[in-house]
């Protein structure tokens, strides 16, 4: 078929270009899944523990919404716990991997005009999309295979293990198809990512409602089909066939759509925008806000929703921990106070890390704008380097406060609604906001790397990885206390489980300010980076 000429060479080219990226996705997803699989038997060592887990999850709508319908809970076994803990996360992770990579090799490639270069050679019309589908499909299969082998090696029952791994792979394939179709319809990489993720979110929400109401609505969601394989509970393999057929249909549909449009354009013509800029946008701060607005809204909504989720399950934590000595020990070590407050303190640390991810990406916008040459025309105007940087950093700092407020309000509102105690809202909002000084330290590190090593500014993510590593594994592998102190989050009073202490917050803020000052002074003294 001449429309596929060159597909083999393109596959090798994609593998070469993305050898690191693919490896990271594959290892991260299968690694996290197998780590949970390996840990579960020690947390739920006997039938009684499994039964209390199943009893809790089967009856709590919030947990059902965020884990799955609990097929086979009438005959509890450890495999069902594994499904509940890993399946939905794995499906979402693989779906996101597929969406990001499909976009990267189709729409984003066209947008960068590199696709023209490729297509002008002896390459068939469908070859680039087919090569991308093949590689990304392959990545989904590899993750599934690693997980299946791992589950069996960890002594989970074989057919259930295969079904669980295959359910994640088939959902990943299906969303690769979704992204392939969306890439044909929209006309930018950003829109492709946004619309595909919206489809994923909708599929998630439909099955969440369907699973809670138990009314068959979940059959409208492809995630529901993948879960309906009933891993470790009398498997029904045909539901995975639905995913496979849909994935193949979507990819064929994408090929067909691509014959109905020109290279570089979408099926939906772009709407005309504003011919003039409003006055606020023509100032450094206003422009920075306009450029970061989308990301800021996205992070705020995401953190608010996560907070809401955590708030809604907080009361069940107490019961869950009462039934399980291992988990009770974990929470006891993490802080004094009531179990629920300890849980909140742990959650605040996690949400703080997410806030840190926002702050770093927002501050590193400076490095991006500089590297692609968009800082140049601004700095050749009457904007000083200081004012230009200050605009983006103000958005990063204020955005940190906004996103963490959303997280705190989300937790506060849902927990207040459950306990009928409005006083929880300011209490939990405050607990979320005490993490802001620690986040500002990460922001300061990002500014310092931008000023000192502009070409390696992404190294600032290493600071977040370190803080996350200390937060997640510090207790588990018993790191000595002094090594844990490198994470700024270790110095934040663990509200609401502990009392508020102001001194560490002042010290953290001072360190953050010093790092920002160092970064900006270095930026002022160095060459603007060109290309």
């Amino acid at each position, binding site marked *: 078929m001449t429309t596929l000429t060159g597909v083999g060479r393109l596959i090798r080219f994609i593998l070469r270009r993305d050898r690191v990226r693919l490896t990271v996705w594959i290892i991260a997803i299968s690694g996290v899944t197998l780590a949970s699989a390996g840990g579960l038997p020690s947390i739920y060592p006997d039938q009684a523990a499994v039964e209390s887990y199943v009893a809790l999850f089967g009856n709590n709508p919030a947990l059902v919404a965020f884990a799955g319908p609990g097929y086979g809970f009438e005959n509890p076994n450890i495999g069902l716990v594994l499904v509940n803990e890993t399946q939905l996360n794995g499906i979402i992770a693989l779906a996101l991997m597929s969406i990001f990579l499909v976009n990267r090799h189709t729409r984003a490639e066209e*947008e960068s005009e590199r696709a023209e270069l490729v297509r002008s050679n002896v390459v068939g019309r469908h070859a680039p999309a087919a090569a991308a589908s093949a590689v990304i499909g392959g990545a989904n299969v590899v993750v599934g295979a690693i997980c299946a082998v791992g589950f069996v090696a960890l002594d989970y029952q074989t057919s259930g293990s295969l079904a669980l791994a295959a359910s994640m792979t088939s959902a990943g394939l299906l969303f690769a198809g979704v992204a392939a179709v969306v890439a044909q319809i929209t*006309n*930018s990489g*950003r829109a492709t990512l946004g619309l595909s993720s919206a489809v994923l979110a909708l599929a998630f929400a439909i099955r969440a409602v369907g699973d809670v109401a138990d009314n068959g609505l979940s059959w409208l969601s492809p995630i529901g089909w993948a879960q309906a394989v009933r891993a470790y509970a009398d498997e029904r393999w045909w539901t995975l066939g639905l995913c496979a057929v849909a994935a193949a249909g979507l990819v064929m549909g994408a090929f067909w759509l691509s014959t109905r449009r020109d290279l570089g354009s979408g099926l939906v013509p*772009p709407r*005309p*925008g*504003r*011919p*003039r*800029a409003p*006055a606020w*946008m*023509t*100032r*450094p701060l206003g*422009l920075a806000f*306009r*450029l970061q607005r*989308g990301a800021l809204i996205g992070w705020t909504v995401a953190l608010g929703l996560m907070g809401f989720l955590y708030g809604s399950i907080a009361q069940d934590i107490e019961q869950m921990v009462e039934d399980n000595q291992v988990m009770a020990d974990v929470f006891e070590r993490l802080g004094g106070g009531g179990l629920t407050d300890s849980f909140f303190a742990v959650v605040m640390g996690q949400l703080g890390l997410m806030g840190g991810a926002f702050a770093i990406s927002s501050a590193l916008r400076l490095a991006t704008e500089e590297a*692609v*040459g*968009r800082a*140049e*025309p*601004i*700095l*050749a*105007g*009457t*904007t*000083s380097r200081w004012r230009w940087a200050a605009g983006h950093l103000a958005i990063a700092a204020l955005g940190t406060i906004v996103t963490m407020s959303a997280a705190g309000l989300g937790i506060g509102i849902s927990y207040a609604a459950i306990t009928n105690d409005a006083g929880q809202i300011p209490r939990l909002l405050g607990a979320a906001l005490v993490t802001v000084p620690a986040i500002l330290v990460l922001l300061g590190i990002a500014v310092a790397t931008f000023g000192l090593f502009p070409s390696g500014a992404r190294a600032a993510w290493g600071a977040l990885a370190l803080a996350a590593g200390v937060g997640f594994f510090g207790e588990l592998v018993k790191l000595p206390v002094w090594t844990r102190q490198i994470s700024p989050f270790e110095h934040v009073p663990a509200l609401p489980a502990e009392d508020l202490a102001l001194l560490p917050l002042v010290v953290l803020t001072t360190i953050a300010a010093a790092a920002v000052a160092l970064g900006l002074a270095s930026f002022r*003294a*160095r*060459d*603007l980076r*060109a*290309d």
Partner: protein
Amino acid sequence: MTAAISCKDLVKTFGATRALDGLNLEVVPGEVHGFVGPNGAGKTVTMRIILGLLRRDSGEVTLLGGDPWTDAVRLHRRLAYVPGDTNLWPNLTGGEILDVLGELRGGLDAARRDDLTRRFDLDPRKKARAYSKGNRQKVALVAALASDAELLVLDEPTSGLDPLMEAIFQDCILTARAEGRTVLLSSHILAEVEKICDRVTIIRRGRTVQTGTLTELRHLTRTTISAQTLRPADGLTELPGVHDLQSDGDRVSFDVDGDHLDGVVRHLSGLGLRSLTSHPPTLEELFLRHYGDELGNGDDTEDRRDDGALTR
């Protein structure tokens, strides 16, 4: 009169690469100054130093009487810049970007902005991601030309423009000169430099090779002459300054050094001239003269062949 831009013995290194190696450039107020050189000669680096975006290693730079590194913001109020590689925010419209760049430059004339948008046939409602390279270039150009800056610094502003837009651009530059503005224009579109520049500086490998008016440069160089004579034009080869002589019966054509033009023409008229055409060297010819050795250099072509073999 103080120079609008003055660079003396400018040196800039990036690691082991010596991007500028004692570059000199002087732009006087009110002139359109062409800044010409092959790729990688250091034109963009020079402009970025003039704008205070890069810091010089040594040498002197004066921009509108000030130091561009320490005084950037104050000096930038009086100039407008078009970068060579125009990268715009993909999710903003062309019109929004025009306003953002114009205002951040220190304000732009709304009437002139609308007029230029029309003349350059730019759709301000389109998002920048939908613009072609030429249209992106136009956005940067309109933002600069719509300002009332006394100095325009333009880094290859017409790369990507079609001939019609190029003509409009040249017209805008001539208008700017008539208004008394100063323009520094880098280019390798030589016809354009010939058409609109008062003076030219030619650089190569980070050094100034020549500078002056086009007339001055041509004086230093050769004129091409074709002539038809009654008597055979013997003896031309013995005359000083004659190069590349080709004769075909009673017709001859050759190049002659500017200094020896007079003697050669006298000699020809002694032979009974029947027709005579002469034309001054084009900038292409000047260019080839300065870089010609490189173009014909066997080693260079060898290297290129090697590279090709590697990628295959």
